């Protein structure tokens, strides 16, 4: 697994507080009723500025992906890295590392569940796992 460490800033503090508890937060606009990705500053549909953090289901499906070939290190065999674009049930897309993903299971629409892992020196970060 090759997740790089991420630290919080003021904006992202609520997101990472929730991620440490295993909950996924997205941005939600009460005025438009639309959800946006975690980094959104205005609503991705209406451009309204009334975004607030709101808990999402943590479920979604695969939209696209890439596989980065691994390089053998020491005695360890090369391990490929699979990165997916996952569309959450609420609509926003997340770019997620898919650890231990079965390459044969990569397909548009494959059900994905968001989990959280904590790399050394990092907040808890979302990753995707195939379900079903």
């Amino acid at each position, binding site marked *: 697994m090759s997740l790089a460490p991420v630290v919080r800033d003021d*904006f*992202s503090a609520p997101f990472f507080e929730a991620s440490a508890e295993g909950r996924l937060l997205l941005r939600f606009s009460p005025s438009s009723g639309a959800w946006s990705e975690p980094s959104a500053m205005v609503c991705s549909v209406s451009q309204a500025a009334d975004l607030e953090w709101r808990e999402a289901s943590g479920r979604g499906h695969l939209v696209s992906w*890439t596989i980065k070939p691994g390089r053998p290190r020491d005695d360890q065999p090369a391990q490929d890295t699979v990165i997916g674009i996952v569309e959450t049930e609420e609509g926003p897309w997340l770019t997620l590392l898919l650890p231990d993903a079965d390459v044969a299971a990569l397909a548009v629409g494959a059900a994905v569940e968001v989990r959280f892992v904590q790399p050394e020196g990092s907040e808890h970060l979302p990753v995707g796992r195939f379900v079903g």
Partner: protein
Amino acid sequence: MTAAIAGLGMTEMGKIYGRTATQFAVEAISRAAEDAGLTLADIDGLYVNPGVKNDTDLRLQSTLQMRDTRLLATIQGFGSSAGQMVQYAAMAIDAGMAEVVACVYADAPLKEGKRAGAAYPGQARAMEGVGSLPFAAGLKAAPERYAVAARRHMERYGTTSEQLGAVAVAARQWAAMNPAAQMREPMTLEDHQSSRMIADPLRLLDCCLVSNGAVAVIVTSAERAATLRQPPVHVWGWGQGHPGYVNRRDSEFGLVTGAARSGADALKMAGVGVDEIDVRELYDCFTYTTLITLEDYGFCAKGEGGDFVASGAIAPGGSHPTNTGGGELSSFYMWGMTPLSEAVIQARGQGGERQVPQHDLVMVSGNGGVLDFHSTLVLSPHPKTR
């Protein structure tokens, strides 16, 4: 609209070490002025587009000892910059702001003894906040970011790696006839298929080169261009399209690019139909970029780009000559100046062995970000009549 490209200046490009972007830029502008039959003193407008290293800017004016400049700016539209600079120069000339505008791209990312991949920034980016999550997940450099776009196209339309390979092979066939191209040795589809995977589905031979160097063009009025040394290349039309992809449901990322709007606007301004275009010079940072730009400009139907390129249409002898200098895949990587410089050469009829016999209308694309920013030019050796 009365603007024309009157001069083209290109430095040596590729693994040229020990020179700064500014030094390359000075040489390219000097060559472009000389090509036009002008001197540096004739230039009263300057647009500077720094590349990935971002180490030259509008202070190039003082380096060039230019005085009383009437138009001066650093332009940054990433890969769409070259087309943008020509557009802004044409409008400034039409407005009477300036008479002779130099537009230059310069970059020197390659360092001797370092791999090309090390030339690109990103590794030092601060990993702070939720905006860093895609990067932390591994979507860092251009190949993997374009890979997810290409994969989406493949899954939706059935586009194959072999079809992407056809783009690479065609570019190399053109490059073989271009003395300035960095990669001229023959390449087969088998070579493409056996090249190492960079970020699935993109292989090494799906990826463009990295080059040090500079390219400049001189833009002036059609009237003045007609009095100068080179055959004028008239600017018939232009457009820009910046889709503003949002990361959410219904995004067309990977399926439709800004080329759709930009190309349609440029053709409308030029007063021509896409079927009238003789030569295409398309920004080809990856093979997939060529393919989707062909679709979005309307040279083939959406989703049929794979079959179109595999038919041989874009290769030498094909029905739709495209990237006739070898493009960024096989010739050199000067952002949007790669397609623009070859467009000028083709429109003038100076392509030598690779010259396309029919070259009355040339369409040029520029693409930046990950399909985020797009510019288009329609050029012709003939004054605009429509």
